[in-house]
């Protein structure tokens, strides 16, 4: 029996949805297992002080109006901060301050994984009373952090590890954010969704500028982005299908380009297979991508890029880019931008808050991971029922965004639809559904 189309449709969507689901699941588990004893807040009864609640510190005894006002102010200040930092980022990128950005980002990724991740590990160790001595713990944490920094910011790492660290970064930051007070969290989520909408779609929006700048320079988007590329195992075990995907993607723009691409590829890695067939060229290229090999070729390629990209080659470069992204992007300053500390990193994360489609796989900003998980984590503090409802709402919002993406073929903000649906479903579930379901189920009535 020939394989039916059911097996191929929606693969990319699932490729994005499963890490998002995983991230949300882990955040919910973390929130659930850590919240009863509240190891974070036990040390400091006052909630953490970040850029997200600079103005107003929520107090359970405040009136609703006070809370609302304070939460809105907090959200406003936070969004303004984000906007400023994103503009600074765009400026730095525009003037090619790549080395400075790169090193600063390295440091901040280290900082996030080391301190925020470390404090979460510590509270896990405390909560489950895992017997471990401090030297071992420190050593493990250090190794974990170093591997994380390397895998996020440079090549030579298996893609699975990279994706894993992306999800981990998302989990760490999201867990941190769930410690914000309730009203502030909701106001913040809504404000960020609105900001995302404006920043990506409005003319002159910082993220739009960033995306355009990156694409005009033929570089990767300067942000921490989860790529739903085929993983190593799939590429190795199933070379044909990923090849088919690649060729299919390229051939959308006609067979001439396909020819050009393969020529380009063959010439570009001439040392390896200058004379082999076009398919073989692509294959080699893609397997090289997978290994993220950091050959001197890369730098060379890059130079070629700029010099080669005259008009006749333009389509080649564009198409080629898809297959070379892997190699190239590790070198681009943009990628390094991610993973900053607390407030600072927020903007960049957010900068990643849009998904971009390339003909190979979909990219989702890490900011989306973070704020989806924040919403679900916040819902987990109320009840399991709201968690399921929010999860479904967010996932369906993500699905809608992805469908829109395939229609529009440009960078889209991934937060607005999902966050709107998530917030609506949270309050509907909490206010309407819960009394209904609990009322009928405790009488053992079901339908």
């Amino acid at each position, binding site marked *: *029996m*020939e*394989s*039916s*189309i*059911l*097996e*191929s*449709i*929606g*693969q990319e*969507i*699932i490729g994005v949805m499963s890490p998002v689901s995983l991230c949300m699941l882990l955040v919910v588990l973390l929130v659930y297992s850590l919240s009863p004893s509240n190891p974070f807040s036990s040390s400091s009864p006052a909630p953490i002080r970040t850029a997200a609640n600079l103005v107003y510190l929520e107090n359970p005894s405040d009136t609703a109006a006070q809370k609302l006002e304070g939460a809105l102010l907090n959200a406003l200040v936070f969004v303004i901060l984000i906007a400023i930092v994103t503009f600074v980022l765009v400026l730095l990128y525009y003037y090619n301050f790549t080395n400075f950005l790169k090193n600063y980002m390295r440091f901040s990724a280290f900082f996030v994984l080391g301190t925020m991740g470390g404090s979460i590990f510590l509270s896990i160790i405390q909560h489950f009373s895992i017997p471990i001595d401090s030297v071992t713990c420190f050593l493990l944490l250090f190794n974990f952090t170093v591997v994380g920094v390397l895998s996020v910011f440079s090549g030579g790492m298996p893609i699975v590890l990279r994706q894993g660290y992306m999800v981990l970064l998302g989990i760490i930051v999201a867990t941190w954010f769930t410690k914000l007070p309730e009203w502030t969290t909701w106001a913040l989520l809504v404000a960020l969704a609105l900001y995302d909408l404006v920043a990506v779609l409005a003319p002159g929006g910082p993220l739009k500028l960033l995306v355009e700048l990156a694409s005009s320079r033929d570089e990767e988007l300067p942000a921490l982005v989860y790529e739903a590329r085929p993983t190593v195992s799939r590429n190795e075990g199933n070379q044909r299908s990923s090849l088919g995907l690649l060729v299919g993607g390229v051939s959308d723009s006609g067979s001439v380009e396909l020819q050009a691409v393969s020529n380009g590829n063959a010439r570009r890695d001439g040392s390896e297979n200058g004379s082999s067939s076009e398919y073989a060229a692509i294959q080699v290229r893609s397997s090289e991508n997978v290994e993220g090999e950091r050959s001197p070729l890369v730098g060379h390629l890059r130079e070629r890029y700029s010099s080669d990209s005259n008009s006749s080659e333009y389509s080649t470069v564009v198409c080629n880019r898809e297959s070379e992204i892997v190699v190239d992007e590790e070198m681009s300053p943009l990628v390094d931008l991610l993973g900053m500390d607390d407030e600072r990193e927020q903007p960049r994360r957010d900068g990643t808050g849009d998904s971009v489609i390339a003909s190979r796989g979909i990219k989702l900003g890490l900011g989306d991971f973070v704020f989806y998980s924040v919403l679900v984590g916040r819902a987990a503090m109320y*009840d*399991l*029922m709201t968690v*399921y*409802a929010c999860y*479904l*709402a967010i*996932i*369906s919002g993500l*699905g809608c965004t992805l469908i829109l993406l395939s229609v529009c073929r440009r960078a889209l903000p991934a937060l607005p639809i999902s966050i709107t649906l998530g917030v609506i*479903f949270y309050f*509907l*579930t909490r206010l*309407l*559904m819960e*009394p*209904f*379901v*609990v*009322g*009928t*189920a*405790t*009488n*053992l*009535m*079901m*339908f």
Partner: protein
Amino acid sequence: MTVTAGIGYALLALGPSLSLFVSVISKKPFLILTLLSSTLVWLISLIILSGIWRAFLPLKSTTWWPFAILIFSSVAFQEGLRLLFWKVYKRLEDILDAFADRVSKPRLYLTDKMQIALAGGLGHGVAHAVFFCVSLLTPAFGPATYFVDRCSQIPFFLVSAIIALAFVTIHTFSMVIAFNGYAEGNKVDQLFVPSVHLAAGMMTLINFASGGCIIGIPLLFLMAILTLMHCGRMVWRSLTENQRQGMGNSCSLCGKTALTSFFNIQSCIYFVQFNGH
């Protein structure tokens, strides 16, 4: 009763669905999407229903007839929604077939259609189990358990898990029956589904009587087994007809259905034993 018990209850309700998910659904991305969207549809229907009934809540727990109206209206609403789901699916099927033609792959096989129906039904069933059983399980992870007055022999969590299992089965397979019935224009199948759903809903009313769950739950499982058998017969019939027409399909779905019914029957036996203790 701690974490182990909580996980156990959740697996009682969702174990068969989990095996079905792993063995059939998870391999095909499109089926996962179908499952998610049908879960969402069910959730929306539940929210709308609770919005309608919110004004009358909480119902007095001494009279049974408001519950009867509630169940009747809910079942009627959800069956209406199933019709809508079918209409949407029909359109989707055309799109899929057109897409298959374009990429020159085979059109949807009969088994594919059944798998889509199965995924849709599983979505409904899982949503039921999640919202009526798993989401109430939070206290079961703690050190205590909870008994309802009217069914004082068994912990509430166990009862709800068992009932949820029956409903998961009914929802999952009645979707297959309904889709097949709509496609073939078979009136019996089309009527079979709402009546089973309604009957199962009404049977939970028996739980209202003190000690009624001893009678109500076996009856409920009878309905589940009836649905399962009807579904199996129907799938078998249409597959053999299909084969006779020379389509030459492998019978992967009926194998899977048989597998699931085996799982379900096994779990039923297990529950009966559990209840006996």
